[in-house]
């Protein structure tokens, strides 16, 4: 019984990191990037390929995934960050579609729809850590905790302040002498790097990876977690993740008839997203915010 609880904690930890990374670019800086899932996928595939083809271990993969997703985001940023608002949303959504098509067709690299199997479990100082064991939970929670500390520093630093200013009014930020394009690009690169780490964590947990990781529904769940948590609200993103995953697991336990479990979950997500935007645009967890 405890393993199920552990698996839930691990999934929540991975998604909390991914949602927090999205919170940095979408929540804090206001970059309405619908393609954030690409960085998660790129990180996951980096770890999977390096592990299966070159035998890279868990820690090296985390670094490689962060680096590679970050570099990918730099190129991606130059491409899309000149755009704003709806142009950015559509262009990034399109980029996610392209990423999914490439992952499906580049057989030699990603093994296409057959996916990559036989990825090793994490190994730290020689000990292989079994999925869903207590050690695994502690490892993942510590990694997510450490990365969140880095994110916390970013959120609450002059750089974070600059990002918040860009979200409020980019023109005014330029009038205050700030190179907003450079700041936005770095915000995207950092958020991509952290998303890449989340991707590597997913790979070393599921031990199997296929192009469905780039699926569109994942994007909506990410937007939901950050919106419910409160855009730009550091603690909100974590609590938002827990709430959304909890709601996601609810239908399984309430015993809905199977044919509508998936549908009922989506209706709950839709109601939560729309409700939050209507009545709580600052998110459900504003008690962390300064008044």
């Amino acid at each position, binding site marked *: 019984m405890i393993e199920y609880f552990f698996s839930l904690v691990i999934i929540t930890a991975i998604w909390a990191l991914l949602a927090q990374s999205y919170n940095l670019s979408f929540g804090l800086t206001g970059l309405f990037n619908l393609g954030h899932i690409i960085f998660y996928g790129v990180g996951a595939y980096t770890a999977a390929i390096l592990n299966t083809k070159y035998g890279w271990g868990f820690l090296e993969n985390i670094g490689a995934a962060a680096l590679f997703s970050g570099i990918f985001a730099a190129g991606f940023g130059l491409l899309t960050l000149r755009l704003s*608002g709806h142009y950015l949303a559509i262009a990034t959504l399109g980029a996610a*579609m*392209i990423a999914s098509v490439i992952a499906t067709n580049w057989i030699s690299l990603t093994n296409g729809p057959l996916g990559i199997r036989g990825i090793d479990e994490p190994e730290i100082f020689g000990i292989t850590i079994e999925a869903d064991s207590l050690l695994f939970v502690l490892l993942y929670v510590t990694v997510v905790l450490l990365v969140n500390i880095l994110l916390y520093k970013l959120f609450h630093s002059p750089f974070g302040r600059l990002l918040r200013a860009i979200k409020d009014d980019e023109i005014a930020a330029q009038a205050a002498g700030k190179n907003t394009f450079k700041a936005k690009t770095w915000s995207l690169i950092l958020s991509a790097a952290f998303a890449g780490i989340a991707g590597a964590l997913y790979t070393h947990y599921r031990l199997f990876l296929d192009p469905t990781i780039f699926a569109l529904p994942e994007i909506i769940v990410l937007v939901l977690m950050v*919106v419910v948590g409160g855009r730009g609200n550091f603690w909100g993103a974590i609590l938002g993740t827990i709430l959304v995953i909890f709601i996601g697991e609810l239908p399984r336990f309430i015993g809905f008839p199977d044919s509508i479990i998936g549908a009922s979950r989506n209706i709950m997500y*839709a*109601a939560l997203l729309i409700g939050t935007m209507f009545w709580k645009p600052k998110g459900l967890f504003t008690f962390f915010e300064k008044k």
Partner: protein
Amino acid sequence: MSELVAQLIWNGLVTGALIALVALGLTLIYGVAGFIQFAHGEIVALGAYSFMVLHKLVGWEIVPSAIAAVISIIFVGLILERFFFRPVRDEDPMVPLVISIGLSIGLQAVILIFFGPNILTISKKTFHSLSLFGGKILATPSQIWAVVLAIILMGGTILFLHKTKIGKALRAVASNRDIAEVFGIHVNTAMRWIFGVGAGLAAVAGIFLGFEQNLEPMMGVMIAVKAFSAVILGAVGSVRGAIIGAFLIGLSESLLVGLGIIPSGFTAAIPFIILIGMLLLKPEGLFGKRFTALRQ
């Protein structure tokens, strides 16, 4: 060889016509209401499903069920505007966009619960394709009607926007919402017009899409995604731009894959390869004005 190209062009025209019908609605909504309506794909699906209910289950003939379906979906469009988008009209345009994303997954789930996951055919009748232009092109009646009707509706919409009083007022509201009253149209009426017309056009596209590809809850997603890029390709808010963007996507998809320039596995990415390519070369879109930093 020329037969192949002719058929590919026809396929591109059919796909382009359907995308254009969806993109038209999107451009009107974006031009006036200022946000990309993400649930527009689900309105396409609702159009197909409501036609199927009337035609196949209730048993009406094709034309009456089509008209009834389009009218009922126009009401759906008005209801969505009234209850989901009017309350947040003056907020930052990202708010209605996120709400429309929520609506999109919500409506998909509602369709799934009502009509079940299986793929349904839209009509019991099967239509044999006719050969046009001396046997060069094979087209089904629904495809022919799709292209013809799309061109009529597009022409009609452009005339409506440029010739009628309401049309001119809508275009004015598009450029500056606050001075809507000056042009003799209340903002609410303007919103009702664009959401109603947009939903109606999407319903028409849905019906023809149903004839093309049968019905499934997620049928609207792919065509909506293509319509999004058509809207941006054409420069947001410009109706002509969206139409040409739509046909550009339809034709390039069928020609690039049909002539083997791009492997068929990449078809789904073509609209976006064009979009991102274009955004690099001509950021203001094919027909837009220079996008200055100050125009917020």
